[in-house]
């Protein structure tokens, strides 16, 4: 197996899931975004989005702050330094691995 294809096999499985990739992409460009923004942009259900955020939090890619705005729960998500580095690495890895494909 060539080195390029070994790169695909070793890809970051946490980020390789499309919904999580989009969540991390949305958070990459900003300081933070709240749950409602992520939900309206990804179109995921609350439960689905929550489970992806838990996975990203457990991987150390996303930091989640739970609080209240008035009496309403308010969840703010931000990408950690590790999450930023992981997305950059994932992008480079996929480009390198698939860039050599014949057209």
């Amino acid at each position, binding site marked *: 197996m060539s080195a390029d294809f070994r790169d695909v096999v070793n890809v970051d499985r946490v980020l390789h899931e499309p919904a999580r990739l989009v969540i991390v992409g949305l958070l990459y460009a900003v300081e933070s975004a709240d749950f409602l923004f992520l939900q309206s942009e990804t179109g995921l259900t*609350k439960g689905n989005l929550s489970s992806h955020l838990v996975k990203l939090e457990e991987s150390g890619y996303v930091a989640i702050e739970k609080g209240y*705005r008035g009496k309403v*729960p308010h*969840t703010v998500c931000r990408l950690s330094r590790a999450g930023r580095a992981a997305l950059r690495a994932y992008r480079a890895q996929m480009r390198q691995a698939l860039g050599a494909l014949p057209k």
Partner: protein
Amino acid sequence: MDKVELDLQRALKRPEAYWYEDGLAEIALGLWGVVLALAFLVEGIGRAPIESFTALFPIVWAPGGYVLGRRAVLATKARWVYPRTGEVRYRLPSMKEHFWWLVLAEAAAVGAMLAALWASRHYGLAGPRLALANGLALAALVLVLARDSGWQRRFVVLAALSVLFGTLGTTLGPNEDLAAAILYGALSLAFVASGAMALRGYAGRAPATPTERNER
């Protein structure tokens, strides 16, 4: 892979476009521009409260308008937009980046003044003709906004209007200040109208809902 890569590209650009989606930033910019146009108007008819009223633009009107406008937009978004489609906090530039942006902005301002002076001496580009030059420069800036907003059509239209109003200012303005007043006044009203239409569209797409709840 193409789809995922495409979604990633879209996701990376989406938060920036989100800032412009509700039209509030355009309305604020337009209102500030109306004030600037009025300043040119009172100077153009010789009724300015102080001499070179509009010359204070780079040191008073521009930074003051930016600070006040940004605060007003953020406060309005917090009340109207964030409860509907969510809140985004943008990354602020570091002190070092701030410094270099300031240096760049000042260099651009000084460069523009020197270019105007040079053009007026060598090509007679002075008086009302400056309105057309300003219109072209503003069109370029509005096209930057268009790019940041994901090429929303209304910004491209505003860029075209900037050139049109610059031409009108040059044609109709009896002097430099009144030509500028025509350009800034008409373009600012166009910004307010465009922002108002965007806000109306946004409100229709995202009706008021109870703020986020049942999160996990």
